């Protein structure tokens, strides 16, 4: 166990060293939330002038409704591409090096998942700061913000793990990208990340209710809009269970991975 953690740490160390060296990527990370909140928020703010819509959204401020959604989307898009690092590593032979090293095999995906979560959370923190500047107030306070980050991190783990498990058998970036896109769009739109459940058609509501994204966004939104609600812990539990399943899955996949 101790070895697994140490090995994972150094796999993550490698990814993060490279991440924080990419100046352009870092800049985009900071600029993106400004664009989202300023453009989207402004364009849609007319919506909340309608009292009916305001009731659906649960808040009179569309930006407040949007912020958890933006955090979620950013975290999703950062972590779901985690698998591309494995495809790259395979391409230039580094994956063989990792597989040949006496590290715990599970450390390869876990390290990369951890790195993806750190990247996602770094972006989430930037978004929260920008949102606060735009006047968004989190009803659950500072502890609530920490809870939002925890949930975002756990979701990041799930998506990165999913993408990593797929990547083991995939030889090209293009194949992985198209597979990811296949899953991402339905996951996004069949959840209440962008629109509240209540305004969705019935059939879409059913899909949204079995979508893991929903279980991340619901507590995040509640913490932002409503404050601490009792069912946050249930959502957290569901997410933790999905996390455990994904970790077991990636561990098995990487344990059996060969250079073939």
């Amino acid at each position, binding site marked *: 166990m101790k070895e697994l953690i140490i090995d994972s740490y150094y796999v993550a160390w490698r990814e993060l060293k490279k991440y924080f060296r990419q100046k352009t990527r870092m800049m985009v990370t900071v600029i993106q939330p400004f664009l989202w909140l300023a453009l989207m928020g402004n364009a849609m703010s007319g919506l909340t002038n309608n009292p009916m819509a305001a009731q659906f959204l649960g808040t009179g401020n569309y930006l407040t409704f949007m912020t958890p959604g933006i955090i979620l989307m950013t975290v999703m898009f950062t972590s779901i591409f985690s698998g591309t690092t494995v495809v790259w590593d395979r391409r230039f032979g580094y994956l063989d090096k990792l597989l040949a090293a006496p590290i715990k095999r599970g450390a390869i995906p876990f390290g990369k998942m951890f790195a993806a979560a750190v990247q996602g959370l770094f972006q989430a923190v930037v978004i929260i700061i920008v949102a606060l500047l735009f006047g968004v107030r989190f009803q659950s306070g500072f502890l609530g913000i920490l809870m939002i980050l925890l949930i975002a991190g756990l979701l990041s783990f799930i998506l990165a793990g999913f993408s990593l498990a797929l990547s083991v058998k995939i030889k090209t970036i293009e194949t992985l990208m198209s597979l990811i896109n296949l899953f991402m769009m339905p996951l996004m739109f069949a959840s209440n990340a962008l629109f509240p459940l209540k305004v969705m058609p019935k059939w879409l509501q059913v899909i949204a209710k079995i979508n893991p994204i929903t279980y991340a966004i619901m507590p995040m939104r509640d913490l932002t809009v409503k404050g601490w609600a009792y069912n946050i812990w249930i959502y957290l539990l569901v997410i933790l269970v999905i996390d455990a399943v994904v970790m077991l899955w990636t561990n098995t996949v990487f344990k059996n991975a060969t250079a*073939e």
Partner: protein
Amino acid sequence: MNEAIIVDNLKKTYSNGVEAVKGISFSVHYGEIFGFLGPNGAGKSTTIKTVIGLLKPTSGKIILDGYDVQKEPYKARLSKGYASQETAVDDRLTAYENVYLQGKFFHMKEEDIKKNAEELLKMFNLWERRNDLVETFSGGMMKRLDIAAALIHRPRILFLDEPTLGLDIQTRAAIWEYIRKFKENGMTIFLTTHYLEEADALCDRVAIIDQGKIMALDKPGVLKSEIGGDLITLTFSENTNGDIKDFLEAVKEKEGVKSVSEMKNGIYSIVVEKNGDKMIPELFALASKFNVGISSVRLKRPTLDDVYMKYTGRTIREAESSRDENAKNRLITRRMKR
């Protein structure tokens, strides 16, 4: 225990049906440089990857440093270093970070990594550039770094897959020097190559591998001597007065001459048992006796290429060109499957 690697009847068939290795057995002694010589696609990389546990063998047994690779993969991994054909260094990390990370993957202590990394990077002439990103390095520097990283934990057995592929002559010579030095320090080295000179210059023993089978295995000198002796080729001056036929008859009578024959367009070949260089002056003495003018003479020592030719019926270059096609086709079919 005096064998570093024992491979017994190893077979590897890929999931797409390609039989890369068709039942090979060999063993590598501790402290020797053992070479796998063969064209691309002969099964060299597959063998190396199976021996270090990157690929699962279809059948057969592999013992590495006393550990069964399939039963105790973790222990078997500890005693070996591996530098792959692809030069797997992370080009967005610095040279030092690459080596450091490798040390960490082998669970080394911080101070040991520091000490070994400094020694290795200095030895490989990379110390001044240790804090530069690897993407600024030349191909030769990357290769040196890759080998340095493979050595950070001082492995007992070092695996080098095509260590000088695509490198210029100076870099290649430098890498040969390093490899010899490792051997002096008691390391066992298993390398694959499709350069005949490399196998000849470095290896204590060479296995010639073709189409997934070992065709011959011995010391390079022994393999070469099996081919026969040195080859002297001669051409005669056009306006020679003497009788060429009589001269050739006389040559045939000489001690140590195995055969004399005309190859083509007036080029004659003389095969001698050994010491072809000493035979040449004697030939000239004989030629002047018969009043025959020799216009050119060439001495050829048997090379591993001739050995390769003997066992496979082709030169290594001929094998390469047809293999390239096969490899390309295989890659295409493999991609289509995904």
